[in-house]
């Protein structure tokens, strides 16, 4: 379901701004790639793929800025979230931010 919605969102953006999307979409990560990355590494705490609060906070609809999210992914928060700055590439982090921004209810 979420993959479909992400796909629809991506298609909608493609229709209007395909060249921009190619540049902005997590450095070119596919929806499947970024969804798999999120489910592998982030989903244990950010539950339902980040759609609901659980072990970690809900990410869908977050009011945090891209810069805040990137900083939190890279540096973590002691006792709450690991730092992924050395584990994930800038491309992957960009892909996750893109994924979060396009989350829709499942």
């Amino acid at each position: 379901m979420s993959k479909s919605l992400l796909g629809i969102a991506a298609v909608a953006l493609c229709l209007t701004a395909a060249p921009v999307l190619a540049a902005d979409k997590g450095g070119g990560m596919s929806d499947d790639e970024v969804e798999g990355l999120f489910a592998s590494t982030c989903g244990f705490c950010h539950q339902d793929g980040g759609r609901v609060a659980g072990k970690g906070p809900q990410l869908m609809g977050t009011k945090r800025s891209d810069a805040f999210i990137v900083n939190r992914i890279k540096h973590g928060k002691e006792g709450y979230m690991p730092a992924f700055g050395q584990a994930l590439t800038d491309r992957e982090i960009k892909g996750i931010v893109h994924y979060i921004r396009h989350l829709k209810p499942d």
Partner: protein
Amino acid sequence: MHHTRAMAFAAAMAAGALLTGCAQQETAMAPAAAPQAAAAAMMPVPPDGATGADWTSYHGTWRDYDFSSLDQINTGTVKNLQVAWTHDPGRDTRGLQSMPLAEGGVLYYSGSYSRVYALDGATGKVIWSYFPKLDEGLIKRQTHSPYNRGVALGHGRVYVGTMDGRLIALDQKTGKPVWDTKLINSQKLTVGFTGAPIVVKDMVVIGAQGGEWPYRGPIFGVDANTGKKKWTFLTVAPDAKSQATWGHNSWRTGGGGGWMPGTYDAATNTLWWGTANPAPLYDWSGADFMHNGARPGNNLYTTSVIALDPDTGKLKFYHQELPHDGWDFDSAIGEFVMIDQGGKSLIVHPNKSGYIFVYNRGDASLVNVWRITENSNFVQSIDPKTGELIGRRDFTAGHVDPPLCPAIDGGVSWNSGAYDPRTNTWYKVGNEWCMDLKVVKTRPILEPQAQLDIGADFHEVPPPGADKPWGHVDARDPVTGQIKWQVKFKEPPMASLLATAGNLLFVPDAEGMLHAYDSRTGKELWSHSDGVGHDGGIMTYAANGKQYVAVVAGWGGMATDGFPKMFGEPFTSMPRNTGVLTVYTLK
């Protein structure tokens, strides 16, 4: 009366665990006890099954009873139980999850970042402390960190594992390091040591984290005197036979591990250990898991109990509790209750799924399998004679319907139950929760550093017919599963239990209350707040002729992270990353 009790107490301390007299006296004091329980209470306690003044290993003794012969604190006196002293280890990131130990009136325990303390058991005065210098950059990158679940005592030393992959020996009298051995490349593999080590003969044994991390989950045997590594047992595919149970060479990233301490059967010189789940946690194989999905095959020796020769680390025998575990229901719980019954030598081991496996100690052949939870649907049942999983649910990618029961947090969690050998009663927590699950295809991430491989989106949901998850403490026959009594809890208690010859069962609950029940009836006799949720150990010991009960409180374990969403207050406002050791005694 008090004089009699003091004498019984002293005798128990001197003899270690000769309980018959104490039990008879206690039974006489409590005429309300059921006749059956009273008769059973007269049974002698195996001499190595109960602790006395000391509590020197994770479960007290090798029999994993979490049961003490001390009875100064009992059903009659517990009303006078009060706080003797407290201690905060500091830097309580992810709470306080360890099991304290005691020897010669000194209490030893660890906190997060593998901080170790030796405290005067009567006063709490610090005798020594040890804070290892850790790779803090690595710890910031680790998910399940930096809690520590306990130390081991032996050969005049205190042993502790670290999150950055080391095992350290400290002088028991001074706390000075004796040796410090790097065992695993945590900087690359992410996994380290959170579980307590154990001392077996001239060896220290410790298991690494694993499960969802794509490695091969080693268990190490280390020379207790020199720190030299003597053997490594890889819980994932250590031999050709087991390698063949991982299709597509998936054994290279298979997970496994042994993140809680095992136990030692001296009669057969056998080391028992429980292994963790394979990675990814959730597979998309569908029903034909032998040929499809991320890791086709049975995935030996994950989600298994294994029996090793402690001198060589060689596998003697094993039983895989859940072949091709696709539900994250580890066998890593380090509770192996040794019971001699009807001429048989048995071991009772809880699987995270909520199924309880009863084995012959000689070869891990099955005697029985029973279930402690009400809500379970990952299989229809497990054959109690063959162990076959009947009606198993193996998922494909996408949403799972109906929700999976129990939830990822387990039908039982990693903390221990307690066994009263006088009455053949095992006290154990059961958790009732399910989860909405969507299986997602993933690929293991190994570079530049191994990452979790979950393979799913999920969130916990109440079991059918309930508006919230809940938990219960059961008193059961550990071999048959027959229930004697049950106490229900609004939230599953997440800490270990303690039973004593004072006919008491101590239950530290999730909200932070420590309860004492009459262990024969389940009647609550006493409670006291420790200020924050319990998620660790509890034990009892004696110092200067007085009995003490020590319990750790501190919230922040992985399974507890979802409590604010599931239950609201007091968990919404409950501080994480705090912790305190509270020690009780009689007025």
